[in-house]
């Protein structure tokens, strides 16, 4: 309307000069990686989110426990009965959760192996986030990884180690190409990546189904939509009770950290993700960054796919990708799109998944509880204002700073 360009600098008056004390806003928004104290609010928020989720989860455990419900009926006559039953239910569920996920070396190994694909796919989503791209397509990218790594794994005949490496590279490259295609579409035509990745997920699912209906991907002598497992020569070897993929996942996290924080490419990714206009003005090729960002995100999803195919030696099936691609979004969100955060969130989700099975098996807790816990944690993390309200970490109304914006001055 007014031809005057609004001064959009969100530098309200209260932030007059750099030497003045600044309001909390700036410190909360961005944690300085070199300063552990700046992490504290984030850590506390996440811890509170987990604690609140566990409390609500405990309530659900009680409400789904037969004994506790029966005792509830005569709560006022024999209150102790109810609380004993409730405590038993909570204790048996949560102790099964902990024992089942980290209770022994064996369980820990299972947790690590379950976390590995979540970490890799989560890193892919995180990396894309940092480049300003919302990658919903980890599932589709993983499917292409399955097809390539699986095909190489069960069809080709190569010596051990080499076979594994070739299958690994095939899976990573296939995921990268499928992800990169989304980036290319965005760069060339402006097609929004949320739409294209969702569509590409459907496309990949159909292609997988089609492939599994063909003899090339089916087990000999069977018409089931299930491929053979990859040859033993193509599987990840074991390193200290876990397959090599777990090590690769941690290496990938280190690599992503280096890329984002220490490389020119990462500098471009973060700059474009945060302010594409300024990046373009600074001579960065925004289209290239989008394409490369999605390419790398796809590569990480492809790496995640090899965890299942080459690590667990799972057969390809229409449902093999499961929820990993979507859980990866949650993991990235919970990990604040940082590599370390993604690793920690991936481990938490892996533990919840493995521990959730133990809860079902030993305490009869419905599998939904583990999922509800995951969902609640993310809900509270994604709604920091809610958690802050619960903890009263900030008493000053944040609305006031919003109002002061755009008032020139």
């Amino acid at each position, binding site marked *: 309307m007014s*031809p005057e360009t609004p001064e959009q600098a969100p530098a309200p008056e209260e*932030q007059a*000069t750099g030497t003045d004390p600044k309001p909390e806003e*700036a410190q909360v928004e961005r944690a300085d990686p070199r300063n552990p104290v700046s992490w504290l609010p984030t850590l506390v928020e996440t811890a509170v989110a987990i604690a609140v989720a566990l409390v609500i989860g405990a309530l659900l455990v009680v409400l789904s426990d037969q004994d506790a419900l029966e005792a509830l009926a005569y709560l006022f006559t024999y209150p102790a009965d109810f609380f004993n039953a409730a405590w038993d239910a909570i204790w048996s569920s949560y102790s099964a959760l902990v024992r089942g996920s980290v209770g022994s070396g064996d369980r820990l190994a299972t947790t690590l192996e379950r976390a590995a694909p979540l970490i890799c796919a989560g890193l892919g989503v995180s990396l894309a986030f940092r480049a300003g791209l919302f990658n919903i397509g980890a599932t589709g990218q993983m499917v292409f990884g399955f097809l390539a790594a699986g095909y190489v794994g069960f069809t080709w005949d190569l010596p051990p180690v080499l076979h594994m490496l070739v299958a690994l590279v095939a899976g990573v490259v296939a995921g990268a190409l499928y992800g990169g295609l989304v980036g290319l579409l965005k760069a060339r035509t402006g097609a929004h990546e949320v739409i294209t990745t969702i569509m590409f997920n459907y496309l990949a699912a159909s292609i997988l189904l089609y492939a599994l209906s063909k003899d090339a991907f089916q087990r000999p002598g069977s018409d089931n939509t299930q491929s053979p497992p990859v040859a033993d020569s193509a599987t990840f070897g074991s390193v200290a009770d876990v397959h090599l993929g777990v090590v690769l996942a941690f290496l990938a996290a280190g690599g992503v950290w280096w890329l984002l924080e220490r490389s020119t490419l990462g*500098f471009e990714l973060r700059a474009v993700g945060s302010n594409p206009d300024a990046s373009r*003005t*600074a001579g960065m090729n925004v289209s290239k960054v989008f394409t490369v960002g999605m390419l790398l995100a796809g590569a990480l999803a492809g790496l995640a796919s090899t965890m299942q195919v080459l690590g667990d030696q799972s057969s390809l099936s229409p449902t093999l990708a499961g929820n990993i691609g979507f859980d990866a979004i949650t993991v990235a969100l919970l990990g604040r799109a940082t590599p370390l955060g993604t690793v920690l969130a991936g481990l938490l989700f892996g533990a919840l998944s493995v521990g959730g099975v133990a809860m079902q098996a030993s305490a009869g807790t419905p599998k939904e509880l583990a999922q509800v816990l995951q969902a609640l944690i993310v809900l509270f993390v994604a709604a920091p204002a809610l958690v802050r309200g619960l903890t009263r970490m900030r008493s000053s109304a944040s609305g006031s700073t919003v109002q*002061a914006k*755009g008032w020139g001055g």
Partner: protein
Amino acid sequence: MRLEIKGLTKRFGSFTANDSIDLTIEPGEIHCLLGENGAGKSTLMNMLYGLLDPTEGQIVVDGEPVTFASPRDAIAAGIGMVHQHFMLVPVFSVAENVMLGREHTRGLGVLNRRKAAETVRELSSRYNLAVDPDALIEDLPVGVQQRVEIIKALSHDAKVLILDEPTAVLTPQEIDELMEIMRELKRQGTSIIFITHKLREVKAVGDKISVIRRGKVVGTAPPTASETELAEMMVGRAVQLVVDKEPANVGEEVLSVENLTVVDPRGHQVLKDVTLAARGGEVLGIAGVQGNGQTELVKALLGLVRPDAGTIRLDGEDITRHGPRESLDAGIGYVPEDRSHDGYVGDFSVRENLILDLYRTDGFSRGLALRLDAIEQNADARIKEFDIRTESPETPVRSLSGGNQQKVVVAREFSRPLKVLVAAQPTRGVDVGSIEFIHKRIVAERDRGTAVVIVSTELDEIYALADRIAVMYDGRVVGVVGPETPREEIGLLMAGAGAGTTAATGTDTEVEA
């Protein structure tokens, strides 16, 4: 109406934005509020208009203490506000905009447009505003739109009118007209709080001047006070208002623009056949009201906008088809007009922003790896050299003040050898102290033989820096004149008088900046 502010204080957390402010606005007085960006003027006005709750203190209207929970209360108490960015619906008529929010209806929700139009007509004639109630907002020049805002406030029976930086968007002629309107309002008993940082305007129209610095009223002055005195009060130290510069030592033609035409995506010609040349060692000032093609011109120079016709040459080489990267590499320094949008990445630290377009050079990276030590040294050196006030090089740029943000951009662009410096609005939203500093650096760059192109909508800035002045109107260069040309003459050119066309009517010239 007599408006008193007593000990008004506003704190955000540990930060005090307004510290025990006392002011009295007498009836029929133009009270100027002078202060730098970030001094606390807007916070104060937000409290007066009910947008913020004061932490302490009182607002007193005609001896009665009042509290405003929302702008609605403030309006009811007789306070009106004209925002710097207008709040008008472009496709509605003037009358419709004025009645917006409290529509006159005749039973059954039928809008009474006639009554609204009458109100506009009456106020317009009473205060000499010359506004047609039936005109569509989008067809009106900016100055008239501003008058519609004033009518809106007056139609609520405002007794105290707050004008927030009203002259920032106006041509010199429009500024004169606004001054006239302010005097008329005052004559008829309306008090005005006039917020600005422009000393000339304060002296021209003010009855009383209060200067705010760092959230405090540091003093009041009569309009007879000299500009130097006022500037000192505002900044807190002696400032030099005139840039010391030697006569230009003009060299070869470095940058030439021939018959440049740009058509925007909507099909409007926003740049029409522009021909210009910038020579080494001189500052070419491009004057003009915002939105007359300057934005597209500088973007085309850097390669952010592809020209539809014409050529741009740098040292004789055709760079018309260059993208920003090639242009930067070829030695063009670029200070964009909207720094938060194009100049820096707000989430990035000062250190990172200082290499935003340099990270790929050998100095700051080796292969894929950034050279952190070099980046760190660069940041420390630039922060010192340009006196960037930041807590640390790690501080995100978005939390710096406007002046320091601009210093980051300027420091970055000046930290490599340049053939041409293109700076658009280099000091917009920047405090007086930083303006002085940035101007000095620009002149120093000129003296090193760089061709400097300055685009500014502030004539003062053009006069302070330019060795030649090109005036743009409606996408054309309507004249190139010397720096001694009188203000009135340039004002006429800015209004299109020299172009042989009619006065600006908005449509074509309104370009998203």
